[in-house]
């Protein structure tokens, strides 16, 4: 097949936009439903995130003149496109030529939505938005060290940054250690409990997105859902066994992502929000040791071989 068509099909159909948007709504629903079930409630109906999205598209936004207003329209769009691009980059289907995916690009795209949220909070000029953005920045500095070290240690042990090659690794101790470290960072990356302090509801209104309304808010919701798909998809690609049948590979990918969403929702429902100093201390004191251990043993293994 033409590599260009394959690349486009990946970006637009599976695992790109056409799969990612419904999957984003589905994962948002699973999160809310799982939390509701754990609290002994019934929870929202299946189509709830879709209803919310359509409703938000139909709401008015206050007029915001000038470059500030333009930026406030641009940040959510940029976050959505970065998150959708990150999902499209995941090597779910077996390769058939074309662009094979690059880990560094994927990490950059995964990081972009949180950068957009920081910028969005500051450009909204709301005091609550600025507090939320400052918290998000502090949080991002803390978890990213561990997150990047874990991914680099997996990559370093295999001498490659190509996603395709990393996805087809046989299970090893290094990979499991890296996956655990990534899983510890995911609640902070997705702003769910116990690390929900950037958008701490009721405490600082809604954090960086306090001032956003209507279609802009719909885009934030969608980008949050796409971040769920991309982050759980990254875990799924690293954890999934190598399969040559494309439908089986897709099925395993979706199943593992679903499992990770359930796990994270259970953690979110079972914990309360931590304060910023506790969070930063948790990442810098408790988990950094494991990350350093992982990368040093990866480098050690590399020099031995």
């Amino acid at each position, binding site marked *: 097949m033409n590599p260009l068509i394959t690349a486009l099909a990946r970006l637009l159909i599976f695992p790109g936009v056409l799969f990612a948007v419904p999957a984003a709504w589905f994962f948002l629903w699973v999160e*809310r439903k799982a939390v*509701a079930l754990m*609290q*002994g*409630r*019934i*929870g*929202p*109906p299946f*189509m*709830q995130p*879709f*209803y*919310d999205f*359509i*409703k938000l598209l*139909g*709401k*008015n*936004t*206050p007029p915001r003149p000038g470059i500030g207003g333009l930026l406030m329209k641009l940040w959510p769009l940029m976050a959505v496109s970065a998150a959708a691009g990150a999902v499209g980059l995941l090597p779910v289907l077996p390769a058939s030529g074309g662009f094979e995916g690059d880990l560094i690009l994927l990490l950059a795209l995964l990081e972009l939505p949180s950068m957009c949220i920081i910028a969005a909070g500051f450009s909204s000029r709301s005091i*609550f938005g600025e507090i939320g953005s400052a918290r998000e920045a502090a949080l991002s500095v803390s978890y990213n060290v561990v997150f990047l070290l874990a991914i680099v240690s997996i990559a370093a042990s295999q001498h490659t940054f190509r996603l395709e090659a990393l996805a087809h690794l046989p299970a090893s101790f290094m990979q499991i250690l890296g996956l655990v470290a990534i899983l510890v960072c995911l609640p902070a990356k997705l702003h769910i409990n116990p690390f929900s302090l950037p958008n701490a*509801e*009721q*405490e*600082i*209104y*809604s954090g960086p*997105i*306090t*001032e*956003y*309304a*209507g279609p802009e*808010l719909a885009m934030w919701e969608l980008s949050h859902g796409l971040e769920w798909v991309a982050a759980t998809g990254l875990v799924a690609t690293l954890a999934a066994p190598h399969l040559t049948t494309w439908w089986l590979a897709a099925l395993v990918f979706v199943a593992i992502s679903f499992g990770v969403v359930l796990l994270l929702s259970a953690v979110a429902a079972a914990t309360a929000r931590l304060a910023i100093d506790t969070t930063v201390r948790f990442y810098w004191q408790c988990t950094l040791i494991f990350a350093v251990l992982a990368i040093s043993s990866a480098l050690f293994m590399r020099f031995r071989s």
Partner: protein
Amino acid sequence: MNLWTKLMCYCRRRSPWLFHMNGGSCNGCDIELIASLTPRYDAEQLGVRLEGSPRHADILCITGPVTHNAVNAIKTVYGQVCGPKAVVAIGSCPATTNVFIDSRTLDGPLNRHIPVDVFVPGCPPRPDAIIRGVARAAEILAERAAKNLPVETVVMPLVGPGCGGACACGGATAPEAAASEVKL
């Protein structure tokens, strides 16, 4: 109505996001509003979400008899909620100023300052009554946005203290809803 308007109307009815504001309330109604989100009543089944920011909300829930201090805040927050929007006045205080009537610290009732869509009477109203009021407000909001109608106030019926349909009797003693709805 074309297809997009119908879909929008459908989605607006199913996704009411609330912003809760205290206009000098004694906290009784505030507690009942939070109770309507707890496991026993679970308003999230109807898509209800309590939002932190008035910019995100569709329905403004106001409690309390509207003190002088609260008037400007209420007007500001009402302006911050983006349209289409609805206002639910929870409890007897925003409707009539209740036992605080003729107090010199009050500037109520609420509909002197902003248009109110649904009054949920009670001191405090039961969570079931609040949920019913919010659901009615979501319907009103969707219909009004689709047809560009003016604000029309609805008073919800009182739900008795004995039963709101949530207990073991299964709502056998719950009052009839639609018949006693009074349009002002």
